[in-house]
């Protein structure tokens, strides 16, 4: 599981974070150290152990299917980077 800087660039792309070649190199050494730490887990026999995703054994609550929120579009859009006519603006995605 040793990584190279091409792997870093691939993972960064999956995470939608731009990294330069220099950054990828610097990140590589740090990530290799962290993954080395993580590797300790592989020595443990976990056969048959049920994964624990949550500390409390509770089930998801359900609520009535009714409208509970009020429309606060203007308030929420007041902190958006770019809006027009009540819509969020992004670069054109459909030609």
């Amino acid at each position, binding site marked *: 599981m040793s990584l190279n800087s091409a792997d*870093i660039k691939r*993972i*960064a*792309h*999956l*995470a*939608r*974070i*731009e*990294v330069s070649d220099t950054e990828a190199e610097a*990140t590589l050494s*740090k*990530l290799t*150290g*962290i*993954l*080395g*730490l*993580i*590797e*300790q*887990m*592989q020595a*443990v026999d*976990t056969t048959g*152990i*049920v*994964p*624990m*995703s*949550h*500390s*409390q054994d*509770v089930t*998801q*609550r359900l*609520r009535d299917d009714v409208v509970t929120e009020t429309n*606060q579009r203007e*308030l*929420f859009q*007041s*902190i*958006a*980077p*770019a809006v027009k006519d009540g819509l*969020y603006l*992004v*670069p*054109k*995605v459909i030609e």
Partner: protein
Amino acid sequence: MINKSLKQLGAMLQGKEISSVELTQEFLNRIDRLNPEINAFITLDKEKTLSQAKHADSLLAAGKGTALTGLPIGQKDIFVAKGWRTTCGSKMLETFIGPYDADIIERFDGVGAVNLGKTNMDEFAMGSSNETSYFGKVQNPWDRSRVPGGSSGGSAAAVAARLCAAATGTDTGGSIRQPASLCGLSGLKPTYGLASRFGMIAFASSLDQSGPMAKSCEDMALMMNVITGFDKRDSTSLNREKEDYTRDLNKPLAGIKVGLPKEYFAEGLGADVAKVVNEAIAEYKKLGAEIVDISLPNTQLSIPVYYVLAPAEASSNLSRFDGVRYGHRAKEYGDLMDMYCKSRAEGFGAEVKRRILIGTYVLSAGYYDAYYLKAQQIRRLIAQDFENAFKQCDIIMGPTAPSTAFKAGEKADDPVAMYLQDIYTIAVNLAGLPGMSIPAGFAQSADGKRLPVGLQIIGNYFDEARMLNAGHAYQQVTDWHTQMPEGIE
């Protein structure tokens, strides 16, 4: 006055010896004087703060005051507050103004407490030294060249420097307890699910929990009464009856069984810290505690497990920061993909990026079983360690952190060394148990500084009242918690 507890200040307010406006102004003046160096607060809004104080005074005048009415509290900048800049310590949210109130903010507002300002923190709560904050590092009031711990480093420094009466924090792997230990105050991470996560900017949702950071256990009990309670807006909030956390404060400790995990006193623990913690345990013996040797055999594994699960959850949670609806957007970009990648590259700091990348990697196709699932399996083993331990004892004690506060910059470039700071705190989050740190004394550093040491107390699920009882009893016979750093008068 600045060294008085919430309880004492509350009595002064109720007795009309002082007004909330006067008290609040006193703390604001202290912030003006000391914060430019300590950097514990990153956002102040004196107008809002003083208008809350005026409102509190009117409640008090009308006889409608309760325990925390009129008391100035520092709020960790991870909690969204309406009309307040809420940054989570990140450039990503540098200009983000909260459009609503987090549950915890609502609760403090609801009892007439005063929001004194937003405290500094590691970016997105990822760090153990407060050095990853976009808004600069925080000084430890006990030695300004040292870190306050993290991620709730601003809150810890603010309480230690008496810049506020108390503060809030959040704890995903030790972020309340470790800074409380390094800055000489009391901090409590409640049982997972007791405090709502609504409006608390998410890091690792299955571990995140908010809690009080204060000068004493009695003050923390008063804050727990406000912070906890069911919230339908948080799907993991537990629907339990409200408790009064002050109810057992004065119970005698005689006969309480205190477990000492041998793994918490093994290699890696600083000798100076061990000495102070052992003295604190001797004090508990005098109070009538029975000491039991226990074992938490999977302690060492808690760090690798945490550094799979927390980044995995973080990589998912932080995908919301896309530069579209709020937060930082790059100035120049090409297509939509380029906008995402550049905005996130510019908006996140190095440690946050590292954790997102680790999380993305361990969740990616082909690695999920080997890392994520494996970590969840070992998480169960860690929780079972505690389950077994609590068959032998009522509470567990040990060190909070392996060392006292370290020098700024000392571990900043070595993530693995930084992660080891949380060796005694992380397992508690993985199991979802309550954990607390209280001041237990001081150790002398090589350069002659007097640095605080914290004693960690871990309880069984929902056993916060007993933990606070244990802490309060100790604070009745010791005065570590009332000592103040020099140079903050």
